[in-house]
């Protein structure tokens, strides 16, 4: 069985072990979160403009949760 075949059956472990070199970490993501969220809330290309933050928010549960919360607030307040 190849390595790929072994991990194909274990997607959660594969996801956990996979790291993205573009990931900027929590400090930078938290510093920029209001800018990123505002861009995302208006349907802007936040992921394309800030790929390092996007990579981080995908991987970091707490920062992803904060982003979801801020985005929900902005969408709720949209006219």
């Amino acid at each position, binding site marked *: 069985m190849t390595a790929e075949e072994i*991990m194909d059956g274990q997607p959660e472990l594969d996801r956990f072990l996979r790291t993205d070199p573009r990931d900027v970490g929590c400090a930078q993501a938290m510093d920029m979160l209001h800018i990123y969220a505002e861009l995302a809330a208006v349907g802007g290309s936040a992921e394309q403009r800030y790929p390092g933050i996007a990579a981080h928010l995908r991987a970091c549960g707490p920062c992803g949760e904060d982003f979801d919360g801020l985005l929900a607030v902005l969408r709720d307040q949209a006219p």
Partner: protein
Amino acid sequence: MGSIVAMVPADSGVEQTSAAASRLDPESAGWLRVLAGTGPAREAALARLHEMLVRIARGEVGRRAPRLRLVGPELDDLAYQAAADALIAITGKLGQFRGESRFTTWAYKFVIFEVSAKIGRHFWRHPDIPLDAEDWERLPARFGFDPAQEAEWRDLLAALRRAVDEELTARQRRVFVAIVLNGVPLDALVIELASNRNAIYKTLFDARRKLRAALAAHGYVGDD
């Protein structure tokens, strides 16, 4: 509300706020101008901002509530504490607002962060598992492995455990055990280890990279 306003120090970054205000949307400029000022206008603005922060905090706590072991009054207390601490953080950092978003978006970010921090702190009131417990039997469930197919993943998990023991530093191992084995939320571990979110995330990030490399070296995962 009066007590909250009284606790909020006047900002020292007034010069920076004046510079930032010149390139802001009118509403954000208005917030900045009045909060950087003094007197009744500032107090009224603080009261209004606090009211908004309480509303946002309650909404955020409510959004997360289904995943928390918190009930009615505790949720409300947490929201009020988060709003009060966010107000202090915002006024203390006014000089750092660079006008790259609306002022309110920037301000709401702080109350969301405060909600996270307070939920992390609350975890230790009723922890399921002591921090130092090490129950490796939880690992298959943690990664969704099917017990009926143990023959397929037994060697992989044994290799993972070996890599945790042999490749990680003591700090990386401690963070891995707490978060992965024991299910301690990252924000709760931040408090227990008197650290910060960025440092704990980086420790786990480096551990994940090491573990993947170790498994790849033994043919369990492909090289990226």
